[in-house]
Structures are given as structure tokens and as C-alpha cells.
């Protein structure tokens, strides 16, 4: 009868550890995404996923496709630098896949739209036009009057 090797328990342990290491390598290879960037340590395809997020705001040039006259007109007026979508709402809420899904928002019955920017607040630049009761015509307006009754939203000359 051959005596079993006095190291046999260590061989078994070694085989077990080896198998665990191979299993680790296999699981690691399967779990690592194929586009993994080993240099900078991220999934390369994540950039494609990020770039595929749909646009909600189209910027002013996207308005021109349908409202060329209006965009051209505003370009000459005082509010020319403003984003159309800032007051009229995001493009995605108005047009989807080239079709109109809802009317663009136009707030005319509230002062909030104007006062968002032009309310008198400390911290605003000194030369920024702010609503003030010191203007003579403002002294005579009735309570809760709408700014757009007298001012043009696109060309609000004082």
C-alpha cells in the first residue's frame, strides 16, 4: 500500500485556489464591457449613450425653420439676444419629429414673465433695467396691471 503524500492536503488546497483564480479571470472577462477603456477606466460606449440623449431645446436657429419672419423681426429689436425658448418654452414641448404637438407658450396675462428678469433686486448690475415705481407712468398704473399692456415683449423700450 502506497502511503499518501504528507502534502496531499496542500495539493488539494492549491488546486482549489487555482480553480478559484481561473473562475475569477473568467468572471472578470465576462463582466468587463467589451468597449472598456483600460487606460482611462470607463465604458467607451457610455459616450455614445450620453450623446444619444434627445434635445429638448433647439436654440434660436431651430425656430427659424417655421417662424422665419418673426425671428428676423426680433433680431432687430431690443430683446434680440434672448433665447426664444426662455419665454416660449422648450422646442420639444412644441414640435416633435417635425410636427407641431402643442402651441408654444406665450404668457401675456402675468407680470411674472417680465419680473423674472426685471424685478428690482439687490445684486443686479446697476445698468440693468429694473422695474421701479419711480417712473412717472408706473405711479398711475392700477394694482396688478400687466406689463404688456404698455410694453412690447420683444422690444420693451421704456
Amino acid at each position, binding site marked *: 500500500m502506497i502511503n499518501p503524500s504528507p502534502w496531499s492536503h496542500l495539493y488539494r488546497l492549491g488546486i482549489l485556489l487555482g480553480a478559484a483564480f481561473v473562475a475569477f479571470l473568467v468572471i472578470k472577462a465576462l463582466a468587463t464591457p467589451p468597449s472598456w477603456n483600460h*487606460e482611462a*477606466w470607463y465604458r467607451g460606449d457610455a459616450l455614445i449613450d*450620453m450623446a444619444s440623449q434627445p434635445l429638448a431645446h433647439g436654440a434660436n436657429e431651430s425656430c427659424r425653420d417655421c417662424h422665419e419672419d418673426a425671428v428676423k423681426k426680433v433680431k432687430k429689436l431690443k430683446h434680440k439676444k434672448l433665447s426664444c425658448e426662455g419665454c416660449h418654452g422648450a422646442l420639444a414641448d412644441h414640435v416633435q419629429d417635425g410636427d407641431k404637438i402643442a402651441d408654444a407658450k406665450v404668457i401675456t396675462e402675468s407680470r411674472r414673465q417680465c419680473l423674472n428678469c426685471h424685478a428690482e433686486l439687490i445684486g*443686479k448690475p446697476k445698468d440693468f433695467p429694473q422695474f421701479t415705481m419711480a417712473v412717472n407712468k408706473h405711479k398711475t398704473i392700477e394694482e396688478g396691471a400687466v406689463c404688456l399692456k404698455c410694453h412690447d415683449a420683444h422690444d420693451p423700450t421704456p
Partner: protein
Amino acid sequence: MATSESSETSSDQDSRRRFLKYAASGAATILMVYIPGATAGHRYSRIWKQRSKEHQWAYIIDADKCIGWGGCVRACKRENNVPDGVFRTWIERYIVTEDGVYVDSPNGGLGGFHQADPEIQKKTLYARFIPKMCNHCANPPCVQVCPVGATYKTPEGFVLIDHDHCLGCAYCVQACPYSARFINPVLKKSDKCSWCYHRIKKGKLPACVEACPTGARKFGDLNDPESEVSEILREGKWSVLKPHMHTGPTCFYVELPKEVV
């Protein structure tokens, strides 16, 4: 008897000494292999190896021009479907008075600001609106702590989040010195400003920059010497938030009051 006992002790001591020697040399070998890698900040240098030669984006905020109307916050919310109560960008108002600094940010500045308390107004020295957002650091602490590589620095300078890979462990939320990160209550994943990566890739500006009526927010390419951001940085009047953190923000502030943190 006494001799054999002493010889046994000495061989015990020998083996203990040998064990300690091997253990110490083993530990030293491990340290020699790993410490240089750790001190060189290998992940940081790995990021910069992949720096893009095409574009290096930068963001500029002019604190003197912001009027705190909140349109940028609303545009960001709509563009990126940011849930209520969390913000990818927000506006803070710093009111510096004779006896301290008052800071407020009602709902992140989403609905604009209201006039400050008359008592505070009386003693105000000056006030500024400070838009805040992810600083897209050159050496981002959030990327360093992410255990799964779900947040990363792209070669063009964006610090982005891979939502498919993120576990929502919030290590990065704690690591960010600018509090720019949050756990998205809907996705249960980490979220933050992406500089509207999807818009940049389509040749547009970030939604907040488009929405800004006064030009307080600017975005551009540092690799283009003619770009507005390059010109502003060349003037040298910029500063960054928390420079002592050595995060290297690529979101620069112009006319930043020293009270702002």
C-alpha cells in the same frame, strides 16, 4: 536536559527570526511595487494621457452679469429631466453686509429671487448672484473614488456618469467639494451636470448657456485661440472655486467676490 531545552528554544527563535525576516522583505517588496504607483496618482496621469488635441472645453461664469432670473435652472431641468428638489445647476445669492454674509438660493433659483429683507438691504455692502454647477475638474475627486469606473473624465474635458454602470453608492457625492453631485431620486443613480454633452456633440451650446440673457454663462473651446473663453482666460481676471482643493476646475469665474465659497 537543560542543554536540550536551550537548543530547542534557540531553534524556535531562529525560525521566528526567519519568519519575521521573510515577512518584512515580502511587505517591503509589496510596498516598493505599489507605493510609487499610488503616489504618482496613476489614475490622474492615465486620464491626461488621453487628452484630446481637438477640443478642450471650458465654461466661464461672469458673476457681474448674472441677474438671477433662473432661466438657466429651468432650461437645465427641462433639457435633462432633472427631478424636483435636485439641481444640476443652481444660483446662489451672496449678500455681503457689514456684519456677515447672507446666502440664499430659494429652490435653487428655479423661480427667480425675491427682494431681500429690508433690514438686510440697509446694511448691504454689495450683493452678487453666483451660478453654480459641476466644475468638470482636471483632477476630479469624484472619478478617483468611484469603485466601478462609472464616472470618468473624457479626453475633451467632460466629467460624465455612466448610468448603466453606476451603483448609486454615493461615494462621489461625498467626494465632490462643490456639492455638484446628487443621487437622482428617480434613477437612484448618481447625477450631475454633463455640460449637455449631447448638445455639444450636435454642435449646440449647453441649455443653460443658451438660456442666459445677459451672457453671464459662456462655453467654448480652449484649443481655439479665437474663442471667447480663450480670450477671457488670456485676460487673466479669472478665478476658480476652492483652488486649495487642487481639483483644477475647468469652470472659471470672472469677477468672483472673495466671499464666495
